[in-house]
């Protein structure tokens, strides 16, 4: 399994039809949801359904993530039932402090079975306090894989009006990307909630990519192709990255310590970006065969 999380698709945890078909949509990650998608009276049945689905349904094309409830509601029961079923990670809602993550990590450690691959944590940042504490949260545990942003709860808590173009969440998005990058983990953007507006989805996703997000929470299978297309390296980006690497090789061959491309110096951040682009392109089979 790679660390590709362009799309993380929510599947309602008490819906057997969605759970059994979730693997066919091609999302990088599936989030089997025990929180908002499940009514309080059905938390027990959904937990069992998700646990059995994880054990028996083939999700081999996608990473499996389970959104649990908060520890002050059903979270402990969720962790005890779900962790032994070997999800790749838990998505933890309404994370406010690093202590929240440490408490979750301790519960996970207690529930893991001997020899089991460590279950990761993705923290959903959806409160002003959580955003203010984003870096301590991102570094609270070696299990941390990503910060994800939940803009609906966040703007509601601020008292801000939510708009489609999203100027009210610009600062929050940038702060979250920065905190995740500083911690060396991924950042995943808030979902685009109008499933009928594909143009808006593409524009919103392109802006998220521009800010540095590595993927987007996804609420409908119809959104997957559009989001993947935006996050995939474009032909232009791949071509640029190949030329960067060619310039580096040429400088090395000539014994020069400094490489340049189109009159601009090629330094370490440029090389890192080019390598990341080519890594993604190879992973996704987007490079032409035979081209170095």
């Amino acid at each position, binding site marked *: 399994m790679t660390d590709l999380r362009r799309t993380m698709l929510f599947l309602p945890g008490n*819906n*057997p*039809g969605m759970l*059994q078909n979730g693997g066919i949509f091609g999302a990088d990650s599936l989030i089997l949801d025990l929180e908002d998608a499940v009514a309080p009276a059905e938390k*027990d*049945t959904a*937990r*069992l*359904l998700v*646990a*059995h*689905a994880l*054990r*028996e*349904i083939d999700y081999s094309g996608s990473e499996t993530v389970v959104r649990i409830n908060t520890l002050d509601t059903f979270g402990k*029961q969720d962790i*005890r*039932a779900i962790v*032994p*079923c070997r999800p790749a990670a838990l998505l933890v809602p309404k994370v406010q402090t690093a202590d929240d993550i440490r408490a979750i990590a301790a519960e996970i450690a207690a529930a893991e079975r001997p020899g089991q691959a460590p279950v990761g944590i993705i923290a959903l940042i959806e409160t002003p306090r959580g955003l203010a504490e984003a870096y301590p949260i991102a570094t609270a545990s070696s299990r941390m894989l990503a910060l994800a942003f939940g803009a609906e709860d966040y703007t509601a808590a601020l008292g801000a009006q939510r708009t489609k173009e999203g100027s009210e969440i610009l600062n929050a998005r940038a702060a979250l990307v920065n905190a995740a990058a500083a911690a060396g983990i991924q950042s995943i953007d808030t979902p685009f909630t109008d499933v009928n507006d594909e143009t808006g989805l593409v524009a919103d996703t392109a802006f998220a990519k521009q800010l540095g997000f590595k993927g987007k929470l996804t609420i409908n299978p119809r959104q997957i192709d559009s989001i993947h297309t935006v996050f995939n390296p474009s032909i232009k980006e791949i071509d640029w990255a190949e030329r960067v690497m060619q310039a580096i090789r040429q400088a090395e061959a000539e014994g020069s310590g400094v490489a340049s491309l189109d009159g601009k110096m090629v330094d370490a951040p440029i090389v890192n970006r080019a390598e990341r682009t080519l890594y993604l392109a190879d992973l996704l089979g987007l490079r032409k065969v035979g081209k170095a």
Partner: protein
Amino acid sequence: MIQLLRPAQAGTLESNDIMITVAPGKAATGIVLELDSLVMDQYGEAIRQTIAETVAQQGVDDLYIKAIDRGALDCTIRARLLAALARAGVIRQEAVV
């Protein structure tokens, strides 16, 4: 021997789900299963077997089960049955997976 404490139900009538109701059976009647399925001809026996095995693992003796199947997978049948039994007070939630 474990006795059912109360009747209970889990699951829905949506596609790919199964609604299972459990209730205490009369003494020494064993497991009585009333099954209605969209795919009775093809999978009726397999569904009966999945239910029987799951109940047997929980050590329940006299039990009435009504199951209305809408094309559920085995894992869904097991999850719904265990949820109904847990709600009935037969088993602890954490012990069932």
